[in-house]
């Protein structure tokens, strides 16, 4: 379960002054649900997800992840969260298995549990053929699978995906989409950010449209279609953000 209440993040920039990257964002995502955070570049998606993953501290407001406050109990939040993005780096000189085991150990798994979990995940994601290959020798798809395995190793209840298919070929992207679906089936709370409309249409139970750090619209796809009298999600998206969009925000 993820609950944010008035989540706000301000950055100070010498040239631009105070930047309100996330502005009073409130939403809830329940177990077994996929919450899609839809927004243009620079809208505040990544900053929101980073606050949920305790990488950034909110300026004001709060967020609870599995009942743990991101400011008061960051360690408990991190233990409950799996974070995946396309930009997630792997250690090039570790093998795929070592990489996954490393994060398992950091999450406090004992050797027996770790071995069981590694075998399970490597079987499930068809990773056995490259488990002993160094990460710098892996293909993009293999790397992405290793990243997925790394996020799953401690069996987190909340999965956070930050533009997980950005720059991936269609087959690798499909693997990720399947994986996100599987997370929902397993009853996990899933939140992911994207600007790919088709992914949102395929996956999301609730869609939040964010622009200039503000959550401008929220609801299921059916609710948004009814509210904005449009069938196409792209048209809905443009209609929602147009009054708030300035091209220079897209960085």
């Amino acid at each position, binding site marked *: 379960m993820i609950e944010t209440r008035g989540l706000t993040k301000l950055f100070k920039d010498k040239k631009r002054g105070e930047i309100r990257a996330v502005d009073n964002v409130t939403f809830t995502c329940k177990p077994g649900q996929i919450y899609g955070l839809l927004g243009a570049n620079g809208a505040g998606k990544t900053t929101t997800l980073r606050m949920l993953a305790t990488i950034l501290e909110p300026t004001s407001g709060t967020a609870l992840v599995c009942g743990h406050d991101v400011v008061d109990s960051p360690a408990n939040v991190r233990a409950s969260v799996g974070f995946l993005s396309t930009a997630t780096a792997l*250690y090039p*000189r*570790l093998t795929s298995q*070592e990489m996954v085991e*490393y994060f398992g*150990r*950091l999450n406090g798994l004992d050797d027996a549990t770790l071995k069981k979990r590694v075998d399970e995940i490597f079987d499930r994601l068809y990773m056995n053929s490259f488990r002993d290959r*160094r990460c710098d020798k892996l293909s993009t798809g293999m790397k992405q699978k290793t990243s997925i395995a790394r996020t799953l190793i401690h069996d987190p209840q909340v999965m956070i995906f930050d533009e997980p298919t950005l720059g991936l070929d269609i087959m690798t992207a499909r693997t990720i989409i399947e994986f996100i679906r599987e997370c929902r089936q397993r009853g996990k709370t899933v939140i992911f950010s994207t600007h790919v409309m088709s992914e949102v249409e395929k996956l999301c139970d609730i869609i939040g449209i964010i622009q200039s750090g503000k959550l401008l619209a929220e609801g299921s796809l059916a609710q948004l279609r009814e509210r904005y009298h449009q069938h196409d999600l792209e048209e809905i998206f443009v209609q929602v953000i147009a009054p708030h969009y300035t091209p220079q925000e897209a960085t």
Partner: protein
Amino acid sequence: MPLHNIAIVYRKELTEALRDRRTLISSLLVPLLLFPILTAGFSAAAVYMIDRAKNESPKVALVGGEDSPHVLDQLRSIKNIRIVPAASDWKKLIIDKQIRAAVEIPPAFEAEISQQKPDVVKIYMYSNEIRSETAAKRLEKALKEYNETIVSERLAANHLSTALLSPFDVKQENVAPEEKVWGELLGGLIGYMVVLLCLTGGM
């Protein structure tokens, strides 16, 4: 961060470092193999060069001295030196390393000496060329001996002792124990090695 996690991160970092060829070369291969090989190699090369220079009988050109037979005898008596007549371009021959050095005896040198007038014998050589410097040192040594012989003869002619020129000697003696002497040497070397390893580690 808990100690347990520090150990996990440390182990991971070590694994990564040991698999990195660049790290291995700069932190292990260079200091453990390359530096000793280079040091030993340079020392061996230097010893070889010095030995070769010592064992060589360098050619030395004699310029002038036709009217000074005693000094010529003294020069010809030097072991491991071949005195040859000076060609007109003897300076060029030194530069071209055809001859190693030249010694110039001024005209009427012995006549001037007998009248106790100071004079200058010049040795020409190729600076920093080890075989040329060796030849020049041998010439200088022989000429100093000849100089001392003349001084001794002059003192004897005036019924004076050679001790007159050297009222006392100066001697150095080490009082520190051997292990302290070696400790001083090693202490300096360790500091040098630490700086060197820090630099190679940061490469």
